[in-house]
């Protein structure tokens, strides 16, 4: 049996032949045992495949099934989108950001711009006309010493036994 004859038998089994070609194949089948055997095998195979294909029945209607998918997609998209703020939140946002900037500015100025006064107790500003002032700071103890000395007071005390100007006790 040629391959062309086998294709014709396959087309016959599938019902794809014209009326004249079907009659020719049937005439051949009446005389050819091999052709009948091949046709029987093709028909059995076709029947087996068709009857054993797994069915996938839907528990609900097709429209309802796809509408569920569509609703789920819409829900996920809306959850991912940024929620539009309420008018109160928008008002707060407009107010808070400039207020925060002003607050930071005010805090910075209040800490740093006090004239002559530094942060954390440092930054002594001393003015002693006629005297020499030495400043010593112990940061750990939080002590600032401003020591006044008058020019020549040590010599005066040592050699003349005269009290310095700072003697107010």
């Amino acid at each position, binding site marked *: 049996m040629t391959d062309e004859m086998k294709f014709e038998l396959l087309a016959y089994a599938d019902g794809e032949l014209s009326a004249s070609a079907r009659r020719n194949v049937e005439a051949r089948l009446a005389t050819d045992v091999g052709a009948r055997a091949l046709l029987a095998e093709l028909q059995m195979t076709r029947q087996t495949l068709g009857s054993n294909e797994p069915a996938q029945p839907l528990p609900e209607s097709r429209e309802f099934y796809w509408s569920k998918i569509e609703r789920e997609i819409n829900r996920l998209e809306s959850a991912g989108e940024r929620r539009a703020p309420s008018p109160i939140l928008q008002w707060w946002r407009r107010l808070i950001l400039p207020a925060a900037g002003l607050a930071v500015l005010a805090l910075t100025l209040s800490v740093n711009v006090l*004239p002559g006064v530094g942060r954390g107790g440092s930054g002594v500003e001393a003015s002693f006309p006629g005297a020499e002032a030495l400043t010593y700071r112990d940061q750990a103890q939080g002590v600032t010493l401003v020591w006044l000395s008058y020019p020549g007071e040590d010599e005066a005390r040592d050699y003349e036994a005269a009290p310095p100007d700072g003697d107010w006790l």
Partner: protein
Amino acid sequence: MRLPTFRIRVLSALALVFGCGLAAAVAAEELKLEATLVWGTNEAQSPDPKHKPVCAEVEKKLNTLPLRWQHYFEVKRQKFAVPDAGTQKVNMSKDCQIVVKNLGKGGVEMNVIGKGESVGRIKQRLPKGEVLVTGGNAANFTGWFIVLQQAE
């Protein structure tokens, strides 16, 4: 998540605003101060029976300073209050006064007056626990000090 981030920003801004408000409120308060006139000497006993050793806290602070005296006696202690932006004059001895101005935000300006004349001015931030010591030489190799701090 943008909304929680925005909430954090809002809360931070509110904290700043309230913090500044609190700082302003504190700054507007009067300062309660304590000024002590101290005599420093190496003598264990003061010849003046009115003198008493300085309190342990002040002694500890003075001992951390590079001074040559071992003993410190309290001559006079004055507690006083200075209103915000106000000035207070305090007599520490017959010849010594201090004029303290409240600069706000814990800052003070102390004008030391000796024998009727201004000896000098010191500006200093004086939060609680901070001590400002002004001193100089006194007779017989002793020393005088004005210890200024916030009152307890």
